[in-house]
């Protein structure tokens, strides 16, 4: 089972190491981890995807909560959350294939952000499945390089995960 958790941490040096170190030491499996500052620059928000059963998830949450620099840990129910990932993909292209690629890109509501005689760079956001699907489609043309951010996630509606009360 894959789970997604949001973690609000103090924005201090070494915090990422503490988090990733905890995962490796306790034998938890991180699928992806993405970090960025929150609206309050004193805090960062991490979205972490973990693989494991409910017992593992519970331990992950409890162990993370123990870290002094961790302010809040929240499980995100996939049914009630929006999840997004960004990928940029450099794909081989020439005059024969370019238009076909552009068609695929438009079907996926992705964007072309760089064009050169032998390649295109495509930007896509969406849930993991969508990014996977586009990647799959582009493979036939030859993916030269790809960068994916890993997932970010947020609960729908007015409920929030933040540092304050």
């Amino acid at each position, binding site marked *: 089972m894959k789970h997604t958790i949001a973690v609000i*941490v*103090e924005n201090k040096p*070494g915090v990422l*190491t*503490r988090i990733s*170190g*905890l995962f490796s*030491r306790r034998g938890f499996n991180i699928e992806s981890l993405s970090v960025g500052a929150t609206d309050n620059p004193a805090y960062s928000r991490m979205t972490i995807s973990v693989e494991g059963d409910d*017992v593992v998830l*519970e*331990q992950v949450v*409890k*162990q993370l*909560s*123990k*870290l*002094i*620099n*961790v*302010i*809040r840990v929240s499980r995100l129910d996939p049914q009630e959350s929006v999840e997004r990932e960004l990928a940029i993909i450099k794909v081989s292209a020439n005059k024969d294939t370019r238009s076909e690629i552009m068609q695929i890109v438009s079907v996926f509501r992705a964007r072309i952000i760089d064009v050169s005689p032998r390649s295109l760079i495509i930007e896509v956001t969406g849930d993991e499945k969508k990014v996977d699907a586009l990647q799959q489609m582009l493979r036939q043309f030859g993916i030269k390089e790809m960068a994916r951010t890993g997932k970010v996630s947020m609960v729908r509606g007015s409920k929030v995960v933040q*540092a304050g009360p």
Partner: protein
Amino acid sequence: MMVRMTGAEAIIECLRREGVEVIFGLPGGVLLPLYDALYSSDMRHILVRHEQAAAHAADGYARATGRVGVCLATSGPGATNLVTGIATAYMDSVPIVAMTGQVNTGLIGKDAFQEADITGITMPITKHNYLIKSSRDIPRVFREAFYIARTGRPGPVLIDLPRDITVDELEFDYPEINLPGYNPSTKVHQLQIRRAAEALMAAERPVIYAGGGVRYANAHEELFQLATRLNAPVTTTLMGMGCFPTDHPLSLGMLGMHGTKYANLAVQEADVLLAVGARFDDRVTGKIASFAPKARIIHIDVDAAEIGKNVRVDIPVVGDAKIALTELLKHVQQRPWTEWNEKILSWKREYPLRYTRDENVIKPQFVVEKICELCPDAIIVTEVGQNQMWAAQFFKHKDPRKFITSGGLGTMGYGFPAAIGAKVGRPECEVIDIAGDGSFQMNIQELATAVVNDIPVKIAILNNGVLGMVRQWQTLFFGKRYSHTTLGDVPDFVKVAEAYGAVGLRATKPSEVEDVLREGLASDRPTVMDFIVHRDEKVSPMVPAGASLSEILELES
């Protein structure tokens, strides 16, 4: 009014405000400004011979006094020498603050002389750690460090001190603690307390399993009241030893690998198991799948992450053991003495801890019993191995702060320096390190520390000439193939003691044991008592590693 001072002076001021009375340490280049400030302060500093001993001494001090122990080591090798001691304290939840020197902030990351990334190294073995980058942060960091070390589930905190921050000046201001991510729980969940009380009252075969958390929370009286009110038998872990008097009719002694047969049988038969401040270590549970198979499990722990970590828990109670037990006591009434209690008494009669006595050879168990008889109120510290298990089994523990041993990490070499720390913290108590000849040699150099600083600890070596516990496993599980467990010609410990300026005594026959002990205990100097015992003596009973608690072997020796 704010006062201007150097970082080094600020550190000493912080220690003073935290009530620190002694530091165990050893200097080095980057620590010179701090040691210089120490020179003009009235802070007591005990110079050790190896930094590992500084960490263990701080740990022993903390366990014996209930206060935070403090140790200090220089950058690089000094800092890495602390690591075993810090990990030992971490595994047993002992509050210590370890300070390490570090190279100047501008040199960090440049592989400077004697640089080690000690915050990186100790991240997994500290409750928290700090690298101070500016002298201004010193007061805040020290205040937080002591607070974190001693609150909630206690543990070691490390503070890394680059040389320049100890020289730079600052305006000293001791700020309030502001740690938004750290809220040690003080309240317990009333619904869970009521569920726990109901389960205990409905139990036909209750067993209480108490660990080190009871000791740290000072909850032994509440534990005693609960157990006697419920007439529930109590077994303790190695760390919980002394939290319930071993000579009480409800006492089951220790459980687990070298626990009593009756404790293990009781746990396997229990219908409700109340675990308090214990973490279901594998040395205790044996094979998890068949641990306490008939029991509903109630688990009280201050650390929420312990609940459900190793075993499934039916009724979790997150909170300090003293608070939780006090609440629980409000909801339980007197339970009668039942068939279950009688059953346990019959098991206790049937399977007592025992050993065969011998006229000609000293039995290590006999030495421990004699120590207990002659000095029942001593603080007993142990090394690791058979000596540790015999000390746990054959001493009658009745005071929670008087059994000091490395349970979680099982660190050989722990006992002697920890004994030094305990004696410094509680000079009025007799402190005896029950040692193996192997373990004692891991920090034997601290004889110098004890002698020079006039710390009259006693070391009772159960000298079997071998790494006894490992040899026991080889005997039982490796067809007596004694691969590298014979120490060979061990040094003459009496002469070693004398060379260091300590007292050395030896007993080679059972008839000499009592005299040696009397003389050793009467000595007001550090004293080594060397008891020559047989190398084939075994710790019994024993649950083989990975086996179920029901598969307990009684070993002949």
